[in-house]
Structures are given as C-alpha cells and as structure tokens.
C-alpha cells in the first residue's frame, strides 16, 4: 500500500474530526450518514448522499441521510451561503474515504490479503482469491472511533460514477404522496397546539388583556402572557385558532409610529444615521485628461419577503421528568446556533436543550424558523410534559419574519473615449443582511423582544468581504477595471428587521451594476455583450457570457415591437459560481418575461439535474422579485401580509427557462443555489430598456414604475 498522503482537512472536519460522528455502518446493509447541513428543499441531502456513496463504493439506496440533531451531529453551523456542497461535501468526501480505508484494513486482516488488493462493490469487499467480506459483516463502530487524519486521498474525479449523475431526490416520493415529512406534520403523543397573538404593529405594547373568554373556550389549556408576548395553548388546533381570535379581540395595545415614510423609502435610506465604510478599492481616479465621460445612476430595491409556502412551524416539549429539559423540532438552518440562542433566551444550559431538524417548506434564508422555535418553547414551558406545536399564520409569516433589506445603490463611472471604464464607484445605503441567532448582541428571536425586559434586535452587521460580505456582496466589479471604490453606508437603526435572503446584497448590486454596464454600453454605442467581453479576461467568466449569448441567439432576433432582450452576468460572491442570463421580455400593458437563457459554470457538479433545478428555481424566484415583489408598510406596521397584498409570480406568468451547465473541467464544486438571482434581475431590466427605451432603476419593474421612468 502506498504511504498515506496527507491532504488539508476541510474546515468541517477540523471542527468535527471523529469519523464515527459522520457515519455508521449498519449490519443490515446500510450506511447512516449524518451531515451537519440540513435539507432546505434544495436537494442537498441527496447530493451529499451521492458524495458518500461515491467514496464508499456503495449504491445510493444503501445510504440513509440522518437529520441534524444537536449533541449527535457534527456542528457545521448554518446551512447557508451556497456552501453546503463545498463544506459538507468536502468533509464527507474525506471522512468516507478514510472510513473505507478502515474497513479495508479490517477486511484485509480477516481475509489474509493485503488491503491494496481488495476492491469494493456496493459494500462487498472482494479479494483476488475469491474470498469476500463486506462492510455489513464487519460493521463495528470501533473502526470509526478515531479522528480523520487527512491521510487518505479521496477518489479522483475521473473515477466518479455516482457523483455527476442526475439521480432522483431521495425525499421526493414521500413528500409528493402526502407522507408526513415536514415539521408541520409532527404528531407526537399528547400533542397540543399553540398560537401567538402578535402586536398589531411594530413597537406596540400590550396595555390590557382580558383572557377570561379565551380561557373559557372548551379545550383551551392556558393563555401565556409575558409583557407583550401573548400566546395560547389548546388541545385542538381549531380551538387554538378560535382562542387566538378571541384574545386578539380582547387585548388592547398602545401603538406608535416607528416606521419611515413609505412614500419615499429611498430618501429615508440615504438620510438615516449610518456607519460608512470603504469595503474595497483599487487604483485611484484617472487623470482628467483621459476622462471622456462621467456617468451616474441611482438604483433602488424594496424590502422583500421570504414568502415560503409553508409558514414557520416548530414543536417543543419541556420535560416534567429527567433528561434534557427542552426538546425542540425545527426547520432551522442551524440546529447548534438555534440551541445556543434558545439557551440565552430561556436561561438554560445548552446541554439542557436538544434541537432536531425536521424538513420545512422551502427556505431561502433567515426566515421565521428560529423565531417560532422560541414561540413553541415559551408555550411548552407552560404545559410541561405536553408537546406544543406552533405554526405561524400567513399574515405573521409575511409581516413578522425578517425581510431582505431595502437598499439604494449609486454608481458613477469615468469612461474613456471608447466608453471603457477607467474608474468605478459603487455606493450602497441600507440595512445589513444578517441578524441570525449568534450574530447579534440581543437575543435574535422575535418573541425575546416582546417579553418583559426584552431588547430590540440590533441593526444588522456587515460580514467581512472575505466571507462574501452582506450588503457588499458582489459590489466589487467582476470586470477588469483599472480602478474602483466601494462604499457601504450601513444603517444604524433597523425599522424593519432585515436578515439574509437568498443572495443577500448581490441581488441589488448585480441589478445595479449590470444595468449600469448597459447604460455605459448604450452611451458608447456598443453592443452589451461585446462591451462586457472587452473588459473580462477571466476565461470562465467569458465562457458563460458567450454561452448565454450563443444559446439565446444574441443579436439575431428579428425586430419586434415591444419585445426586448437583455443580458446580466456575475460570479456569485466574486468567488463562487459564474452565471450569465439573457432575458426576453414583452412589454405591453405590463412587463412579462417570456424566456430566460442561462449559462452557469459551477465547477464539479454533483447532480446535474438537481443543479439545473436550483438554477431554474432561483431564476424564476428572481423574476418574481424583479417584476412583482415589494413589502408594503405604513408608519405603524407591514400591510403586505397576504398573497393579495404580496403577490408572487404565478404559473401563467412564469418564463421558459433554459439552463446550460458548462463543463466543470475538474474545477472544485461551487454552490449554485444563489448564482442566478442578480443576473436574472439585471437581464430583465436591460431587456425592458431594449423593448421600450426606458431605463427603470427602481424595483419591482411594475407598469407604474415603467411609466414613472418614462421621459416627460
């Protein structure tokens, strides 16, 4: 056997080195794999199962993916930032390769054959002399009770058979035939149902409550009030709903205006107290003699809601016997960070809490999942021994979950005589993009601020650009400009709670920068694709732009009234997947996106169809954001709290989406779930300009906004 070659350990393995924490071999012929990342509806557990099956040389059917549980699972923090395949995939690759070596060594001893003469086929370990053993025969937890060493080389990409195959999702058959698979479906013995009565507006305080009528409803177990936190627990869900309605009617609140004037949100964003930081810069302003044109434009995005189809839900049980005091079942993005925040909120030790992940409806970032876990825990503490399930109303989901922050982006550029950029300035005004538990000085769970002595969640911070930034994500040009300066004005007050929503600041930054690129190209009389390629040396970047242009038939469209085409490009986070989108729109009474042609280079692809599905979904969601979506509010609270007031794209409005994955060329796997958000919005905005000759710089691109942008 060749001496082990030590390779660098992935960060998830450094933090969780024991092999047995990641996987177990069961004598029944199964491999139990326990990643720290969670299924958010993106199919990641199937992709990670493929990685494990590949390294272990077993069929996918033998792999059982276990949900993340505190105390058992490796702590991989949050499932976010399109990093699961990069982090957990790299960890499982190494850990499974080392586990395979351990089992081969055990088989070698049993069979009397050197380990390097053994082969593995679906878990059967075969020797050249015809003797055989198997993982299942040798199953022994002791073999994996050791730290990963980094001493075994995982398979070369060229040997992959399972990784790189479009295998079907493991979880879909159950989810599509109505089997209970979601957090909302848990039905432990003795389950009772809780509902929360939220304040009628931001900052409202509960002045008076008469709970008598609610308590008198048959089946109501208790009413929980802690200052302005108000909830009810009942034996049946229908009773909890009726009791919550009754409490809403029997509570009086003191309301006060805390929100900015919605009529001019951009003015608020630009004038509010802010911390100003230079996020990045290169070179300096060009000598005046070289500058032929100076251009400036200002763009705006509204607050956006996550608007998942399933409102947030959690189940909690406070023990009236021994064992952990509090158990929580949650569709959180991070079981360990949630456990730590619940411990802070409730004054418990982390060891007294167990958080188990259960699938939720689609998760696109920091939504209400963690908040509802505290809601359920607070109600469960009032009925020890009884599991309590709390599911938010649609109105609370659209009105109280964190939002993707509104922002203003101002771009200025100095260009030479041919229109090429000499210097580029990108300024951002808005709230930050992360108030996740663990990132905030206050307890970052909604109910905590409503309880007695609770403090408001502080204005979101800005993660470092080395980790992709937040508001600053994709603000640094991906083009080869000689000079640039990026400035962020992070608001110090947070009138509406903002946090991570799919692609964070990249959505507005790419919308703005790629719109501005077209404005510069137009001013110089140049084709938008040619203009971009002229300042794009990175061959992978050029390849996606060229592929999207070629596939969409760029420049060869017959002229047609009210039809327009536009392109948008970005490399997500400047370090992740490359994506170019060409949009075709029809602009008659309203903007309709007819087709999106997308090219992506994400390096090694674990599951091509799954990757395409993620890109299609991201592009359709970004189309919905760009055309329709805007959180509405008055001085007191959020008013867009139903599907009527917060409409999203419907089946009849969805564009055709055509995705090409470029060859990975053995480049490392890059996350793909967020890469299409910004380029899609930019491509649509540029296509609207191509159709109408009107530059709409404010999202969403509604008929009203198009009219407002038309020259008088």
């Amino acid at each position, binding site marked *: 056997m060749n001496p082990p070659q030590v390779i660098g350990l992935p960060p998830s393995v450094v933090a969780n080195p024991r092999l047995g924490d990641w996987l177990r071999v069961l004598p029944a012929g199964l491999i139990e794999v326990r990643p720290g990342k969670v299924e*958010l*509806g*993106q*199919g990641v557990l199937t992709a990670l199962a493929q990685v494990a099956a590949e390294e272990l040389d077993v069929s996918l059917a033998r792999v059982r993916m276990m949900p993340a549980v505190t105390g058992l699972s490796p702590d991989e923090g949050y499932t976010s930032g399109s990093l699961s395949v990069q982090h957990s995939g790299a960890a499982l690759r190494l850990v499974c390769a080392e586990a395979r070596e351990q089992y081969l060594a055990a088989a070698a001893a049993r069979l009397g054959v050197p380990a390097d003469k053994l082969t593995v086929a679906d878990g059967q370990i075969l020797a050249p002399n015809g003797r055989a053993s198997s993982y299942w025969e040798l199953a022994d937890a002791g073999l994996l009770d050791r730290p990963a060493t980094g001493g075994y080389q995982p398979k070369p990409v060229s040997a992959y058979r399972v990784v790189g195959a479009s295998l*079907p*999702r493991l*979880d*879909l*058959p159950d*989810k*599509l*035939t*109505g*089997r*209970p*698979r*979601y957090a*909302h*479906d848990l*039905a432990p013995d003795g389950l009772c*149902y809780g509902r929360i009565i939220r304040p009628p507006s931001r900052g409202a305080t509960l002045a008076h409550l008469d709970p008598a009528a609610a308590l008198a409803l*048959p089946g109501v177990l208790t009413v929980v009030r802690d200052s302005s936190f108000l909830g009810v627990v009942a034996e*049946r*869900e*229908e009773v909890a709903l009726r009791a919550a309605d009754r409490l809403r009617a029997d509570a009086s609140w003191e309301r006060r205006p805390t929100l900015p004037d919605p009529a001019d949100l951009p003015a608020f964003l630009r004038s509010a107290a802010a911390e100003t930081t230079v996020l990045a810069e290169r070179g300096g302003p060009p000598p005046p003699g070289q500058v032929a044109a100076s251009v400036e434009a200002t763009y705006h995005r509204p607050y956006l809601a996550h*608007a*998942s*189809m*399933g*409102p947030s839900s959690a189940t909690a049980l406070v023990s009236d016997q021994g064992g952990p005091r509090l158990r929580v079942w949650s569709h959180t993005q991070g079981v360990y960070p949630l456990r730590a925040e619940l411990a802070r909120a409730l004054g418990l030790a982390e060891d007294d809490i167990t958080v188990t992940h259960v*699938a*939720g*409806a*689609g*998760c*696109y970032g920091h939504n209400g999942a963690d908040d509802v876990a505290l809601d359920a825990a607070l109600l469960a503490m009032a009925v020890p021994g009884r599991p309590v399930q709390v*599911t938010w*109303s*649609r109105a609370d989901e659209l009105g109280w979950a964190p939002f993707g922050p509104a922002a203003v982006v101002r771009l200025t550029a100095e260009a030479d005589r041919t229109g090429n950029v000499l210097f580029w300035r990108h300024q951002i005004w808005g709230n930050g993009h992360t108030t996740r538990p663990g990132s905030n000085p206050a307890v970052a769970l909604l109910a905590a601020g409503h309880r007695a002595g609770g403090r408001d969640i502080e204005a979101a911070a800005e993660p470092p650009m080395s980790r992709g930034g937040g508001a600053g994500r994709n603000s640094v040009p991906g083009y080869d400009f000689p000079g640039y300066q990026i400035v962020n004005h992070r608001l110090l007050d947070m009138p509406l709670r903002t946090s991570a929503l799919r692609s964070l600041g990249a959505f507005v930054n790419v919308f703005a920068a790629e719109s501005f690129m077209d404005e510069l190209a137009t001013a110089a009389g140049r084709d938008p694709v040619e203009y971009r390629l002229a300042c794009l040396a990175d061959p992978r970047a050029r390849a996606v732009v060229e592929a999207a242009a070629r596939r969409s038939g760029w420049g060869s469209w017959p002229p047609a009234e009210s039809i327009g085409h536009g392109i948008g490009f970005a490399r997500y986070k400047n370090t992740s997947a490359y994506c170019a989108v060409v949009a075709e729109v029809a602009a008659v009474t309203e903007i309709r996106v007819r087709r999106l042609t997308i090219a992506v280079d994400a390096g090694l692809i674990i599951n091509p*169809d*799954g990757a395409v*599905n*993620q890109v*299609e*979904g*991201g*592009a*359709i*969601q970004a189309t919905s954001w760009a055309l329709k979506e805007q959180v509405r509010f008055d001085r007191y609270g959020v008013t867009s709290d*139903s*599907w*009527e007031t917060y409409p*999203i*794209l*419907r*089946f*009849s409005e*969805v564009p*055709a*989406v055509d995705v090409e994955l470029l060859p990975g060329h053995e480049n490392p796997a890059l996350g793909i779930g967020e890469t299409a958000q910004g380029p899609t919005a930019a491509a649509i905005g540029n296509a609207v300009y191509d159709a109408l000759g009107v530059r709409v710089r404010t999202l969403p691109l509604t008929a009203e906004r198009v009219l407002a942008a038309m020259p008088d």
Partner: protein
Amino acid sequence: MDDERAVVATAVLVNGQRREVRTEQDTALLYVLRNHLGLKGTRFGCGLGLCGACLVLVDGLVTYSCDTPLWAVQDKEVTTVEGLGTSDQPHPVTRALIAGQAAQCGYCLSGVIIAAVGLLGRNADPSDEEVRAALDGNLCRCGAHNRIVRAVLEAAAELRADPERTA
C-alpha cells in the same frame, strides 16, 4: 352559530372510508383531515383560499380545505393526496412529477397534484396554457413551475394512452 360551536360527532367519507370525528361543525376541513384523521398530506399555506396548498377533491371538485367547514362536506366524498396513490404506487400525475423531479421543497405539491387531477378529470388533453391556467391558483415559491407543467402534460398523455391507469 351555537350549533356550529358544539363539539359533535360527525361522519365524513374520506378516500373511500367512512370516518367519525368529534369537533365543532365549523372547523375547517383542513384540520379535520390533518389532525383528526392524521392525513398530513393536505397542507396549510394561508388559511384564506389564496395559495392552493390545502386543495382536496370534494365530489371530484377541486376545493380549498382551509376555508371549507366540516358541515359543508357531510354526505360528500373527500379525496386527499393520500387517496390518489402511495409512494410505492403513485398516481400517474405524481409519478410524472417524481420522474421529472418537478419539485424542490415539495410543500405546494399536494395541492398541485389535486388541481392537476381535477383538470385532467374535465380535460383529458390540455394545452400548456390550459395547465398553467388550471394551476394559477397554486402558488409555488421554489420555482418548479415549468417542470410541474411538463409533468402534468406527460401524465395527461400517459392517461390518454391507457385510461385504465387512473383506477
């Protein structure tokens, strides 16, 4: 109103089985199905009949279970997604959805499947536009729309070729 708020035993016919539940007569069918009968496939999305996650068939008609009171389905036949097939033997629409990997989170799919089965019951050969129109009351946030439409068209073709397979 008082009668509606008394807890009474009510018989319902769900997926071909007669079941008895004890709750108030104005309880939404959604909670009867999910909690009293343990049929978790029908899902809560908004409670206002605006998203389609809770769709069921009532005497073959596509119906929002979240705003249909229990009393309204007495003497009627309710079919939920569980009544259409199992993960071993899925309904042709469900099979086509799985084959096309026409989902991401899957939460909206029960309602989509019910709406599609309802459509195919009245129009065996729908166009792409007709499928989209029939599904316009179903919201999907993950962006699986185009895959879903393709799968419904494939299921329709399969059912036309072999109509016995609905049974």
